[in-house]
């Protein structure tokens, strides 16, 4: 799974640490780190909580650009 840089960027824009974001969405810091590293695929519930915390849309943070997209 690829790294999720969008979350890291959005977090940096809001000047939030992993710990602060983790507290906002009610998970451990390790979980936010795992999501950013692409080691953990979060549930839709957690994705929505992260989007709300970072004031972003689901597509902004969790949509993976794929070469095959143009085929659809």
């Amino acid at each position, binding site marked *: 799974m690829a790294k999720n840089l969008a979350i890291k960027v959005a977090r940096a824009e809001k000047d939030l640490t992993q710990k602060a974001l983790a507290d906002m969405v009610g998970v451990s*810091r390790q979980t936010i780190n795992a999501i950013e590293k692409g080691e953990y695929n979060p549930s839709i519930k957690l994705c929505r909580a992260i989007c709300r915390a970072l004031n972003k849309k689901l597509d902004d943070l969790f949509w993976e650009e794929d070469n095959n997209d143009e085929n659809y």
Partner: protein
Amino acid sequence: MTKTTKKAKNNLDERQEAALLKSESKGFWLAYWLLLAVILIQVIIGTTPFSKDIPPMAGEWIVFMVMCIYSVSRYMKDNVWDRRLKPDFKTNLLLSLGAGAVVGILCACMLLVNGRTDVIDLLIAFGAGFVSTAVLCLIALSICAAAYKKKRAMLEEQEAEEDNIE
């Protein structure tokens, strides 16, 4: 009808819960195949003359110990403690006392079943089982809790460094 029972708060977040469920799932299949192997081995050995030399339930004990070691090592690797229980001294002490009481009662019952009805003997058996089990459990739980906290602190520190660098 509404449910009035309130569930205790889960200490784990969804990633930790997923890791725990995965460990439990793998543990179930490990126990399943090991128990099947034990049954087959016992069936084969049961037909041989040296089957009397093997203590009763030896296979089951081996499986139980393997499962204990597997569980602890997986939980340590995933840095997961428990859904409801916390790794503090009070909880560890209560668990150890509970385990000690169970083993103490078991020891006393074994004496009773074998026809020993003297109250002093029963109390000594209970006390020996209770104290030894409670102390060993408390030591084991304290070591595991310390290891869990150490690894957690290490991971937090490591991630904090990564967070600052990037």
